[in-house]
């Protein structure tokens, strides 16, 4: 099948050997900012902002370079050095520039650069600003490593690197115990996902003696069904951890403890989508195993429903957006699980989501900035007038996410729903319903934040954020609107060679009119209407209203994900830990101490023999001599 054969990478020429600069620049800057310490307090954030922009420039240049190549040569391997070589295994730390990775690199550096600019304003008064920017740069470097690597093991380095950056940034305000806990939780849950990831890499090394994409793509079809399914499921576990998919979703909501730019960059636009990237990258594996592919789709569907559900019942603006992020990534996973036809849609949605969700998160940050860092939407209201730029940019994001025709989300999400409908009608139907729910909760957010009456707390004076913050908002709002139209006709063909999809025909910037598309639109409108009926016409209470609605209660409790973890893992884990410590002190060490007591007792018994009389000792000695003599005699006789 031609679909399975990706591009054969060609050697790097021209600008391509400089690809490593993309990673190196932010990494070096991060290192310098951390090492030089207070010296760089004054200018560090400017340097740090320049770093991703410089990487972006390199990425654009490489992108142009790829565009200029014939389709068959659009995968370039940039050799760097041999990372690990032992026995028969060799792991090269090479970079792979292909349509998929360069698109990702552009997203990371582009959105990342804007968020850096935004952060200059957002973190202006924070004493740890230098550290913040250093971590951000570290993140950019790690994320680029993740997407640019040409094998799974180096990918894993970036994978863990972004995990580290995420940990550091979530718990950036580590003096708050909640932030510290949230960071730890994110890291640990990610580690659980990494179990799958590492074991997947073990499997690759054991099966192919290599972990490079090329070797895995080539060898996947030769694996036994058991192993290839296992490999697919293991990769899925990894993806679940990083992309906050059920059942490893619980960390993402807590991760909102981090500064808002972090939520925008890491927990909306880039890092959390790494799981989708991983699945798409492993398309050759999933092509061999329908079970694992189905599992991906199911996980995606469950998550997109769960995320939307949570989004409907939260009052914390960032948590609503976080639920929404889960949900949107669920869409991507669903697409990735559907198979070759939808890989491009997954990445497409990933990109558009990156734009509009980053836009909305930054908008939320701007709102919080104006509202004295209050995140409770019940204390907002009527902000459309006092924060106009924020409002309009946010509105663009809103229209994009609910799937308003001609806005970016419309193209990408509808494509996924359609594809799902064709392949797995049940999942497609669920995705369709979720589209309505999305419209509902986003409209709710808009009402509670921008449109309804003012419910401001005392002493809060909303104001528009400085230019350094709203310029990125505007710059992100533009692609939120137009990205769909621009890329719709292009992305499928561009990615096809890298992800093994087929080049779609007959797509243009005009939306295709289909039954499913119309139904989706109807559902979305219904969602908006319901939200209008519920929130637009009645006043919104300032405190959390009592409800007996089971759905709302469950949503407010994150669908009891934490409770589940606590009951199933934490409690028994703690008990086990205590048990082990008690075992160690009592039994293992106790045996040692018991041995010591036994020796003491034995000594006490023997001490009676040691009565202190010299002559007694003499007698003992003589008896000893006799025994030895007898032994010798007997020995000789025998």
């Amino acid at each position, binding site marked *: 099948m031609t679909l399975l054969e990706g591009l054969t990478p060609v050697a790097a020429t021209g600008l391509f050997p400089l690809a490593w600069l993309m990673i190196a620049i932010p990494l070096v800057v991060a290192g310098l900012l*951390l090492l030089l*310490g207070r010296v760089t307090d004054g200018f560090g954030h400017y340097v740090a902002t320049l770093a991703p922009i410089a990487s972006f420039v390199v990425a654009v240049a490489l992108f142009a370079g790829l565009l200029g190549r014939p389709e068959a040569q659009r995968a370039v391997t940039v050799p760097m*050095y*041999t*990372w*690990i*070589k*032992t*026995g*028969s*295994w*060799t792991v090269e730390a090479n970079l792979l520039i292909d349509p998929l990775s360069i698109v990702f690199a552009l997203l990371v550096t582009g959105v990342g650069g804007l968020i850096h600019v935004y952060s200059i304003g957002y973190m202006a008064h924070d004493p740890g600003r230098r550290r913040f920017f250093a971590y951000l740069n570290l993140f950019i470097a790690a994320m680029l490593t993740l997407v640019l690597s040409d094998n799974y093991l180096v990918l*894993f*380095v970036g994978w*863990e*690197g972004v995990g*580290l950056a995420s*940990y550091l940034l979530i*718990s950036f305000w*580590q*003096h*708050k*115990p909640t*932030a*510290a806990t949230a960071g*730890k939780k994110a*890291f*640990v849950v990610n*580690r*659980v996902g*990494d*179990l799958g990831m*590492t*074991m997947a890499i*073990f*499997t690759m*090394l*054991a*099966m*192919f*003696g*290599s972990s*490079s994409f*090329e*070797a895995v793509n*080539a*060898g996947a079809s*030769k*694996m036994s069904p058991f*192993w290839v399914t296992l490999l697919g499921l293991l990769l899925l576990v990894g993806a679940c951890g990083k992309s906050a998919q059920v059942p490893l979703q619980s960390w993402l909501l807590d991760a909102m403890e981090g500064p808002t730019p972090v939520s925008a960059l890491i927990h909306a636009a880039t890092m959390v989508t790494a799981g989708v990237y991983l699945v798409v990258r492993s398309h050759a594996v999933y092509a061999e195993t329908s079970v694992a592919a189905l599992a991906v789709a199911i996980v995606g569907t469950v998550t997109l429903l769960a995320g939307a559900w949570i989004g409907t019942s939260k009052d914390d603006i960032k948590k609503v957006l976080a639920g929404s992020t889960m949900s949107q990534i669920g869409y991507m996973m669903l697409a990735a699980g559907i198979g070759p036809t939808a890989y491009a849609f997954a990445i497409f949605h990933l990109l558009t989501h990156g734009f509009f969700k980053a836009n909305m998160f930054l908008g939320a940050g701007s709102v919080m900035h104006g509202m004295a860092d209050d995140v409770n939407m019940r204390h907002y209201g009527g902000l459309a007038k006092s924060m106009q730029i924020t409002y309009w940019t946010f509105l663009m994001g809103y229209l994009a996410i609910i799937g308003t025709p001609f806005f970016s989300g419309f193209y990408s999400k509808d494509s996924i729903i359609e594809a799902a409908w064709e392949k797995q009608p049940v999942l497609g139907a669920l995705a369709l319903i979720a589209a309505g729910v999305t419209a509902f909760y986003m409209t709710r957010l808009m009402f509670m934040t921008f449109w309804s009456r003012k419910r401001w707390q005392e002493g809060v004076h909303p104001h528009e954020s400085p230019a350094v913050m709203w310029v990125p908002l505007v710059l992100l709002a533009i692609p939120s609107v137009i990205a769909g139209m621009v890329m719709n006709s292009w992305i499928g063909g561009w990615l096809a060679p890298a992800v093994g999809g087929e080049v779609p025909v007959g797509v243009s910037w005009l939306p295709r009119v289909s039954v499913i598309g119309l139904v989706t639109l109807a559902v979305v409108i219904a969602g908006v209407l319901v939200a209008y009926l519920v929130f637009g016409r009645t006043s919104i209470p300032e405190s959390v209203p009592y409800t007996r609605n089971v759905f709302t209660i469950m949503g407010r409790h994150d669908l009891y994900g934490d409770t589940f973890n606590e009951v199933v893992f934490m409690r028994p*884990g703690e008990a*086990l*830990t*205590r048990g*082990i*410590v008690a075992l*160690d002190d009592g039994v*293992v060490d106790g*045996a*040692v101490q018991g041995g010591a007591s036994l020796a003491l007792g034995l000594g006490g018994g023997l001490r009676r023999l040691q009565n202190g009389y010299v002559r007694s000792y003499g007698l003992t000695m003589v008896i000893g001599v006799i025994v030895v003599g007898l032994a010798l005699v007997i020995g000789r006789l025998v």
Partner: protein
Amino acid sequence: MLTILALLPLVGGLVVWFLKGTMARYVGLAVALVTFVYSVVVAAVHLRGTDLSEHQVWIKAFGAYYALGLDGMGLLMVLLTTLLVPVVLLAEQRSDEEGRWGGQVWTGLVLILESLSLYVFLATDVLLFYIFFEATLIPMYFLIAGWGGPKRARAAVKFLLFSLAGGLVLLFSVIGLGISFANQGAPSYLIEDLVKLNVSPSTQMLLFLGFFVAFAVKAPMVPVHTWLPDAAEQATPATSTLLVGILDKIGTFGMIRFCIGLFPEASRLATPVVVVLALISILYGALAAIGQRNMLRLVAFTSVSHFGFMVLGVFALTTQSISGTIFYMVNHGFSTAVLFLVVGYLARRRGSVEITSLGGVFQVAPVMAGMLLLGGLASLSLPGMGSFVGEFLVLAGTWSRYPVIAAVGTLGTVLAALYILIMYQRTMTGPVTEQTREYVTSDATWRERLALAPVILALLVLGFFPKPVLDITDQTAKQSMTTLNVSDPAPTVGQGR
């Protein structure tokens, strides 16, 4: 050349013994640095292909030789030792008042310990190895008994008894080995001769057991690990660094060089049991670490877990896992050094390393917290740290032979994240507690930073550019595989590039 290398710190240690105060410190540090530089020179000469081995008849009747030599693993252990000693000397400076003996005695003992350890790693004669294996206990005993917590004497005795018990079993095996070999011809304790030993499987198994038990005590494996937490808790952090970073490595070092090198058949037979034991160590150590309330004990238990990984790697019997184990041994030395020494810095200020006695340290001492985090990340094997490469190769190598075992072992990495991050969270983050503000008044001094800088640097460099070192470890690993007469499991599907 090797003899000079090994004797240099001994001479230095004896000289330092007779000096006083700061003079002793500086001279001790200088000696350690000179030894390090010299060891680098030795390494360079060795890597250029010069044969440095030395060979003198020592006790003719037993066939014992004064024989020293270097191989890949030995070279790395020597470098680890010579690097850690100056770091420790720089990081912890004992004044005359605190211990049982003067500060110069401490420095002297550390240097003497270094010398003995070097001999252990260099000896290519089993009897010579045994002598120094036991001799290292002496300075270590005094280091534990002389400085540290109130129950240190007890801890020192416990350490000594465990080690001696292990050593005794080893002695039986060493004697048995000598006799078995002498029965076949001229007596010899040289490793190169002993590999030709040809005895019945049951005898080989007995001899193997003797060696293994001694090394298991040393390494510490569950259930003979209980001396380590006590010793680490009561001794000074610097002593613990040397204990875990260098001395305990003798355990895994011995397993590779002697257990596998001399008794390949027995090693193959014992593999299932040992691998399960290693697995128990990994999980048990990690779980116990999570439950600890004292940071030093916690770090000690993490080491139990990490040594589980190493033993697993050795007995998974693949090139990758053995090579990874050796690599891991080096990096584990570095990562525990960072953890122990930073905890030591804290202990100096706070006077206690109970987890509950600290809180919010990050805000008063960010550099110290950062170093602890780096050490912790190395301990939980974050990619980019050298320990990741080691642990990964161990597990990947194990997976290629025993997937289920490796899968269970991988759980240890999740637990590692838990114990490190819980500790970090409770002590370093959150609001600053009153006691912390009162006692932790200064961040790490330049001296303290300088001491740890090379170690952290080494961890990072080895994490990103492990290949040169892996080339060295591969020599030993491949040699072991040849001795074992085992080949790596071939890739199931096709051959990668």
